């Protein structure tokens, strides 16, 4: 990296690539060549910068200028102005919506200010397809340290002392898990990386793999050393082609450099990694399901114990951690457990990556210390609610989590606090909702997901979730009765209490938390047959406002079911018994004469 004076870092995360960041890279390279600057300026496609809302991102290093929403055609201007003339292209800089002024350096943006990037430390800084860049940022130093200075037990102790807990949802202490796997003797042990990110709304694992694949490989090797394993497996979603590609490149490079394979770094430590592909089953995020899936079976969970650390892949001791957990490992080894355990709260050390999405200004991937409050995340980092609307709820933990409200905003985020308020950390999805979101529909949305993703092995999850969904359908369909609430509660509690695996044990959470926090909204649906958010179609009625209607007949002509009657130039009328609430009339009316209530 030394020979170039300037680097142009272009975000190569999935979001930015979807907005043509590939073309930006191409154009930049072409333009630099045109100007004869190809030996002075290097274009690097990096992993995700996190600020997806403003993507595609182009960052200039070393001056840290942060260009947002760059289009391929902006490239000429960036080269001519910034690179050649040394002048920032102001129109592409980030504008602080509060102060109404441009901020060039990402360090000074609200979005980044409160973040501490540990797991994401290299994302957006290095070319993930180039091992030298990883090494230049202390890559594989931790593995070297482990192999040369530390015994396997030392490694386990460090991780235990660091207080790191699993980032996949459960929050189980990582060091303890490693210790159990290390203690179980066997002729073969396995280290598994769970990269089957299934929470619909979380994409941190993907971003890490796309932006910093070697961090995961290095961590797996360290784990293997600590427990005496020689084989590693990464179970990755087949729907993540870019992450797969970068992992394959990274594994090849690591083998070439002697960082995987036999006699790693000149020692007698041996370890290699293979990929296994998921095939679209959320339940495979559960570790026993994941192991069965890797064995070529239906991804059904089995009862624990035995835990994978005793009997895992092919019946051998197996350690399973998720991507983000592994991404924390090398830096803990490098900087020491005491550096890491000073970050965060009493019971939750370090940081957590969240995928911030929904009705929020700054959609993106963020990493904050444990203990940061929801308010800080949503209103400072996230920049508040989109279009100036009112905050209504934030959903954390995906389908296993719950919807939290205004009164929870000052809760410091950690595993236990979120559970205490009826939600969950989960893998780190954080969906913000505003006044237009119906919370009953939201619960229904998650249940639909669980019904689809239930493996079917145990009765409460297989049938119970379906029944929960049906009751919610009934309520949003305007047929709800008060006794349904009691039924929802009882079924939810029993499903949680009796389901075999984590999926069913948490699937009713979206219902229970909305019942707790938005009880009135359920009552509105049941008693008044009203959905004030305007999302439940069956509870809406379309009206013609007589005084606005000019009788142009446009609405009647567009109505697919002939529900609108009225003479030309006279006020029209919608027959609610025929109306299918498609909204076509409202869309067509130029006089705001049709409203929905």
């Amino acid at each position, binding site marked *: 990296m030394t020979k170039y004076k300037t680097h142009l870092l272009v975000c190569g*995360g*999935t*979001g930015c*690539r*979807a*907005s043509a960041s590939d073309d930006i890279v191409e154009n930049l390279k072409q333009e630099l060549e045109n100007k004869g600057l190809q030996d002075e300026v290097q274009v690097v496609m990096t992993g995700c910068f996190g600020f*997806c*809302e*403003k*993507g595609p991102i182009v960052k200039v290093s070393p001056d840290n200028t942060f260009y947002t929403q760059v289009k391929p055609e902006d490239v000429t201007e960036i080269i001519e102005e910034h690179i050649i003339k040394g002048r920032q292209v102001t129109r592409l800089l980030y504008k602080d919506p509060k102060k109404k002024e441009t901020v060039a350096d990402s360090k000074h943006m609200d979005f980044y200010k409160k973040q501490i990037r540990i797991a994401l430390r290299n994302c957006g800084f290095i070319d993930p397809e180039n091992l030298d860049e990883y090494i230049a940022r202390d890559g594989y130093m931790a593995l070297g340290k482990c192999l040369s200075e530390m015994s396997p037990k030392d490694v386990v102790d460090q991780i235990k002392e660091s207080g790191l807990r699993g980032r996949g949802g459960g929050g189980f202490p990582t060091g303890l898990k490693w210790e159990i796997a290390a203690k179980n003797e066997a002729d073969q042990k396995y280290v598994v990386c769970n990269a089957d*990110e*299934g*929470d*619909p*709304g*979380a*994409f941190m694992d*993907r*971003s890490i793999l796309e932006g910093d694949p070697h961090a995961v490989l290095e961590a797996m090797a360290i784990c293997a050393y600590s427990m005496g394993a020689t084989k590693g497996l990464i179970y990755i979603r*087949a*729907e*993540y*082609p870019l992450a797969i590609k970068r992992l394959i490149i990274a594994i090849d490079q690591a083998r070439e450099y002697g960082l995987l394979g036999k006699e790693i770094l000149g020692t007698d430590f041996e370890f290699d990694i293979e990929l*296994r*592909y*998921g*095939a*679209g*089953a*959320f339940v495979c995020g559960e570790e026993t399901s994941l192991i069965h*899936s*890797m*064995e*070529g*079976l*239906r*991804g059904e969970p089995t009862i624990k114990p035995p835990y994978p650390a005793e009997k895992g892949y*092919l019946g051998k001791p197996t350690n399973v951690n998720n991507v983000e957990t592994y991404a924390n490992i090398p830096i803990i080894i490098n900087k020491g457990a005491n550096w890491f355990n000073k970050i965060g709260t009493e019971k939750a050390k370090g940081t957590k990556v969240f*995928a911030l*999405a*929904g*009705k929020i200004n700054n*959609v*993106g991937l963020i990493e904050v210390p444990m203990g940061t409050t929801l308010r800080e995340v949503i209103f400072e980092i996230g920049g508040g609610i989109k279009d100036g609307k009112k905050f209504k709820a934030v*959903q954390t933990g*995906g389908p296993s989590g719950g919807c939290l409200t205004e009164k929870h905003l000052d809760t410091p985020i950690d595993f236990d606090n979120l559970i205490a308020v009826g939600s969950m950390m989960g893998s780190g*999805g954080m*969906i913000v*909702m505003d006044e237009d*979101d119906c919370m009953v529909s939201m619960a229904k*949305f*998650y249940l639909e*997901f669980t019904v689809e993703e239930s*493996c079917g092995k145990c009765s409460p999850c297989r049938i119970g979730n379906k029944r929960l969904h049906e009751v919610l359908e009934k309520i949003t369909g305007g047929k709800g009765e008060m006794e349904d609430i009691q039924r929802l509660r009882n079924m939810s509690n029993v499903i949680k209490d009796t389901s075999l695996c984590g999926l069913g044990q948490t699937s009713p959470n979206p219902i229970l938390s909305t019942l707790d926090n938005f009880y009135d909204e359920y009552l509105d649906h049941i008693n008044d047959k009203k959905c004030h958010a305007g999302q439940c179609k069956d509870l809406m009625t379309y009206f013609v406002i007589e005084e606005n209607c000019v009788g142009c007949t446009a609405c009647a002509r567009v109505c697919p079911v002939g529900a609108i009657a009225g003479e030309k130039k006279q006020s029209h009328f919608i027959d609610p018994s025929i109306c299918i609430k498609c909204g076509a009339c409202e869309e067509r009316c130029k006089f705001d004469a049709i409203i929905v209530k």
Partner: protein
Amino acid sequence: MSSIKVKIKEKDLNTIKEICKSFDNKPGELINVLHKTQEKFGYLPAEVQEIVAKELNMSVAKVYGVVTFYSFFTMTPKGKFPISICTGTACYVRGADNVLQEFKRQLEIEVGETTDDGKFSLSCLRCVGACGLAPVVLVGDKTYGRVSPEGVKEILEEYKEI
């Protein structure tokens, strides 16, 4: 009762055999084998599953059990341009369902179906990790961000002539 016959083209048979062989014909590699096979054929019809079962020396019932467990595997051919609508939470909150309904209306098919001309098929997927662009639609490998119901027609137009 005579034996059950499975009919298949010789070329296809050899392709499947090679795929299985590349995984040492191990039953534990079933999912990898199915991934590769679906990559080649676009879907996993019954005949293909029969041969995979035979090659991996496992029961075809188990193969079918695995194929139907995972939503990534399909037994019906996809359209020339497979359309996937992200129904992850971020996209849902930003109106993915309305987009989905519009695709269904325009193409006159349900999710999981393919248009009669074999051109488009419709499916839902969970979070592609482009939540900043929600709602997101994929046509083949191409990603469309911030799609509105009104934009559906435009997307389809792009592929009408191809």
